[in-house]
């Protein structure tokens, strides 16, 4: 095998792998990204059933209903719009009424939002940063003096 051929094979392999990788990334980008919205944004955008997104807001005070078995109903609000949510399973430790929450899921055919995951974490004053930002922009939440960045590890 000549030097030229060897180099050709090396470069060819590299280009093939890179092309495949780029293709995979572009393909995966199409539908594995999950967007984050507040109830007001959802109302504006008219998201249909079957599209996964993250819904963020506050758990409306007095809205949590523990239904039959392990299904829980509550309402997520950003103080201007509200969306009812159902979730089956165990709520995170810091899920509280009046506290920030992020629900990952999609609209069902009947128009209710069904969450597959509920994120609420860290400490009592914790507000998911993307949520804090949006609520601040809407003037609903003023931020709090004790906010500290989420501890990394």
């Amino acid at each position, binding site marked *: 095998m000549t030097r030229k051929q060897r180099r050709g094979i090396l470069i060819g392999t590299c280009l093939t792998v890179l092309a495949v990788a780029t293709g*995979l990334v572009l393909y995966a980008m199409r539908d594995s990204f999950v*967007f984050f919205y507040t109830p007001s944004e959802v109302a504006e955008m008219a998201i249909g059933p079957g599209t996964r997104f*993250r819904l963020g807001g506050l758990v409306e005070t007095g809205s949590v209903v523990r239904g039959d078995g392990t299904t829980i109903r509550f309402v997520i609000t950003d103080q201007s719009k509200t969306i009812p949510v159902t979730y089956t399973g165990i709520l995170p430790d810091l899920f509280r009424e009046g506290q920030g929450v992020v629900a990952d899921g999609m609209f069902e055919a009947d128009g209710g939002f069904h969450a597959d995951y509920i994120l609420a974490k860290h400490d009592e004053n914790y507000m998911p940063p*993307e949520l804090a930002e949006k609520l601040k922009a809407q003037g609903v939440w003023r931020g709090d003096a004790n906010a500290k960045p989420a501890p990394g590890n």
Partner: protein
Amino acid sequence: MIAETGHYALILALAVAIVQTVLPLLGARLRDPQLAAVAAPAAQMQFVLVTIAFIALTIAYVTSDFSVENVWRNSHSAKPLLYKISGVWGNHEGSMVLWVLILALFGASVAAFGANLPRQLKANVLAVQGSIAAAFLLFIITTSNPFARLSPAPFDGEGLNPVLQDPALAFHPPFLYAGYVGFSMAFSFAVAALIDGRIDAAWARWVRPWTLAAWMCLTLGIAMGSWWAYYELGWGGFWFWDPVENASFMPWLAGTALLHSALVMEKRDALKVWTILLAIITFSLSLMGTFLVRSGVLTSVHAFAVDPARGIFILAIMGVFIGGALALFAWRAPLLGQGGLFAPISREGALVLNNLLLTTACAAVFVGTLYPLALEALTGDKISVGAPFFNLTFGPLIVPLLIAVPFGPLLAWKRGDLVAAAQRLMAAAAVAIGVAILLLAFQRRGPWLAPIGIGLGLWLILGALSEIAYRVRRSGAGSAEVWRRLRNLPRAAYGSALAHAGLGLTVIGIVATTAWRSETIVALKPGDTAEIAGYELTFKGVAPNQGPNYRERIGIFAVARDGRAVTALLPSKREFTVEKSATTEAGIHASWRGDLYAVLGDPLDDGAYSVRLYFNPLVRLIWLGALVMFAGGAVSLSDRRLRVGAPMRGRTKGAPAAASK
């Protein structure tokens, strides 16, 4: 007084680090051996000073000195001693001190054990190390002073985030940092070689032990983090493709590639320029990991604004070191000269393929981790990239690598024989494919890909064994001869076989758990029984308990299998009074089949509790595999060949093994 001593030691360490950077570089430039010789004592002095600072901070934590703001914010007098100590690095400021301490430790080790390094290379390496230390010390002192005082001193502290109050968290960050920072050695050697404009096979021999040690620590650190997340977060998952995890995984991928390319450089004097570039990339990714986790930029671009000074400072450090190193690379790399080309089918060729796939997979993870940040910065859209993205991109890129792994060690250097290698792997392939087909035939549920994944894991393990078997049995040796060869096989061969087999174990664990886990959520009243994966769990009720700094409710479950009592599971929910925060402690019963995993949920209105049950088949193999990989690294590190030109101390110990060759 102690805090001031620590603070003063940090400032002195900065001064020493600047001396360690400037004088040796000048010395190497001016060919002044005395100036160059300043490097070693400076590196040792720096280690002593940073150690003093670290001890001072630890004392402040252990004695609960709440006049130190950092202690007040992250500790509490009622916290158990272990967490008072681990609390030192459970926060931003303290973890940066730990980072610099490990950096100084590596520098001091080069100074102490690098007596046989060429004088100029040693001076340059220590100078580059010194510059990294100087940058981070400046960062700590100006933006993250752990010794800042509070006046008047508060009566008690605010406590440590409860999820961090866990034994695994005491050890996870030090190992992770030892890995991150360990790659700074490869970086310093690479930059030193670029400054010198000279590089040879011996360079790779010096770099490899450091890289290997860093890689081992990082492997263990990542595994511990995953183990912690598994039992502490109560989701039963072991890996979430969370940006914080990816930040540690990317340097691991690049570091694994670096280990393999340094091998080619050492043995064949090829891939020089690439190895240098990879060393720079690996440490750059480590810096990026530190930046992503420490700046708060990960959760949101805007979280960056929580403390812009810090984020921008780390960004500047990254810019200077990564940009500087890459510019130096562009300028000086052509001086290093090309290594020889080689046949595509050869050990070198296999290692190039390894590097190609590892770096591409790393790039895919990079895109998935940073794309949301870029998108948010550019358009304001907030997205999260979850597991589906990584499964679709990382998976297909890594599978060909896993298939190729057993071939690598069986191919000869320069020109390998693929057919002969395939013949030697025949038995391994037959067993792996056979098992995959059997599983496919008997699988009741789960994706069809799962049996193939298990086969792939077996292929890795058996392939690694086949290599050892081939090496000792070739040309029909008798049993005495086989035994002699087994003993004389270089430890590095055992090391790589172990590491590859460990990878196989991890693959099997990941595939089995992901594909065949059972999960159920039930509402149980005391006396009720739930069933999962052949186990019957009877809920006996809930008992309150008072821990050192928390109150908990413990759920009591009697576990039986086929009517016989197996064990009791005691999952609990802890309320931390000081931190006003709660954690979930899963109840886990481990067996050879897998883990039975129970999480106690909230009380429901009718006196029942919601309970989440999992059965995670073979999940422990994931971490066992990581331990085996670590052991493989350790065995390899003990090989005499690696120690030539590295620590002198080990030489005499390794000599008998060498003499018998």
